[in-house]
């Protein structure tokens, strides 16, 4: 893990007083969230379904805009349009509950999508793909279409894709939520292992307490607010 991949103050992600509502304010999902995620750490964001975990992750990842508040990733403001695209291309990787892969493309083609967006040189992109595929045990599946892959393989593919551009922050929204227990444990092991070996800060939304307990830190969310931070281990 290289320390130069982290922000100077050691905070990879900082959210201040983040509010989000829907239906013109009728439904308030986030109510002034304050959150700091230390660089290089794995953080679990726990809470019941509907408490706002996914909404917060989407805002943190620049996929949505907040009504109020600021979100900084390694010093850059996610909510600022000028920074958002650069962050999405170079600093942030996403793993969703549903793998969100394009079914008509092969595993390799799906993984290469972020490199098209970031403009990574073709040879470098393929080398990176080979490396990640090897580490996630997908080397022999590169030319398989997504429909031909198992649930675990799909989620490992999504992990590869998220790491293609060597992001500094990996946001995972219930990454094992759609998998059976055994596959879930295997994918989670891989997630932690890859995050550690890549030197990536991991923020993972989950309601699986057992998985959360294996992270460096646990953040409890309730009714659109952060209620407590606790060292998970």
């Amino acid at each position, binding site marked *: 893990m290289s320390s130069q991949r982290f922000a100077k103050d050691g905070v990879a992600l900082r959210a201040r007083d983040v509010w989000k509502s829907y239906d013109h304010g009728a439904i308030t999902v986030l109510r002034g969230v304050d959150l700091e995620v230390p660089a290089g750490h794995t953080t679990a964001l726990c809470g019941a379904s509907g408490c706002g975990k996914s909404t917060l992750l989407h805002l943190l*990842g620049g*996929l*949505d805009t907040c009504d109020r508040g600021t979100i900084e990733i390694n010093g850059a403001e996610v909510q600022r349009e000028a920074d958002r695209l650069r962050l999405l291309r170079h600093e942030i990787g996403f793993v969703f509950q549903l793998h*969100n892969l*394009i079914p*008509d493309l092969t595993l390799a083609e799906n993984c290469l*999508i972020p490199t*098209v967006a*970031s403009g990574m040189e073709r040879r470098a992109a393929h080398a990176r793909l080979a490396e990640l595929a090897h580490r996630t045990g997908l080397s022999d599946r590169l030319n398989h279409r997504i429909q031909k892959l198992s649930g675990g393989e799909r989620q490992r593919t999504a992990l590869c894709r998220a790491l293609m551009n060597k992001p500094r922050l990996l946001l995972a929204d219930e990454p094992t939520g759609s998998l059976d227990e055994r596959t879930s444990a295997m994918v989670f092991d891989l997630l932690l292992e890859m995050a550690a070996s890549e030197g990536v800060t991991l923020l993972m939304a989950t309601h699986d307490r057992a998985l959360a307990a294996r992270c460096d830190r646990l953040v409890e969310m309730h009714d659109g607010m952060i209620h407590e931070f606790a060292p998970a281990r």
Partner: protein
Amino acid sequence: MIFLKLIVTNLRRHAVRSLLSMAGIAFSVAAMLTVVTILQGAVRMFSGILSSNSQMIVFERDVSDLFFSSVPNAAVRRIAAMPMVAHADPVLFGIVSSASHPIITCFGVTPEDSRLRDATWIAGNRGDFTATSDGVVLGQRAAEFLNAKMGETVPIGHSSFRVIGILKTPNGFEDGGVFMPLAAAQEFFHKNGASSVITVKLRSKDDIPAFKKLVQSTDPDLIALKNQEFSRTYSQFKILKATAWAVGGCGLLLGGMGVANTMIMSVFTRIREIAILRANGFSHLQVGGIVLGESAIVSGIGAAVGLLVGASLLLILKNIAALDGYIDATMHPLVLLAVVALALLTGIAGALYPAFYAMRIRAVEALRFE
């Protein structure tokens, strides 16, 4: 490569819809190419009649149609006597009809006229052209559809004429026309002492400005134009050309609507996919580029197929015996270029709204989209 794959994948995913859109563009391009080529060919043929072995055309100023132009014999004589004129051929145009053919173009000409001089005489000879007052020379096509043979009498309009010659010319209008001695035509069409136009060959091209000036001073009711000037400015030609492009344009507009429909459906069915691309760092422009790229491929293939279909159609029309000589299937490179460019532009224009829609898709909402 992946970008191209993203474009092509969606076309393959909805192959029937993509093929239908391509067919729409193809038929539009074929229609435009065929109509424009045929009408331009017709204009070229008519221009060919007028410019037969000549550089200039003299006709009555401000007439909308050459059939209404009246150039007096005296003016013909004056112009023929001008020092810079090599020869001046008066031509009277008329439309006649027969029982089987409602429209036959009739040319009242002198025996010296280049149309008679340069044609291949299948029967009869030019020397006999003015030997009788009721004699006509038929183009080969006209002889066929009038079922007339040398020496026979054919009813044309309200009179009957004797066939004193049959000639072959490469011009469809002439080949399907009737040639009368100028004096007989003037009498038949009640235009005594007048022609429709004079086609003029000058001794030197350098004399063109002087000739124009001289005609203006001696016969202010007439106008002398270079053949190219005439083709460019003659309102009938302009109307024909505009009509051709308008008809083709309407076809392309329909094709474009087909593309727009396909692209809108394409965007609607891949909202989630677009969200995935956005979440992976694709910019608005890259997303729009995929939609426009799809449209460009549909239009491009459609245009290519349309060109093939159009060219084949022209070839078929050209080889239909009944149309022999009337269809000039020469496709002008500029027309090909314009048709392809219009097809691509129409396709891309049809994809603008879908692309705009795709660019506005918000990843977070679309990821929830099932």
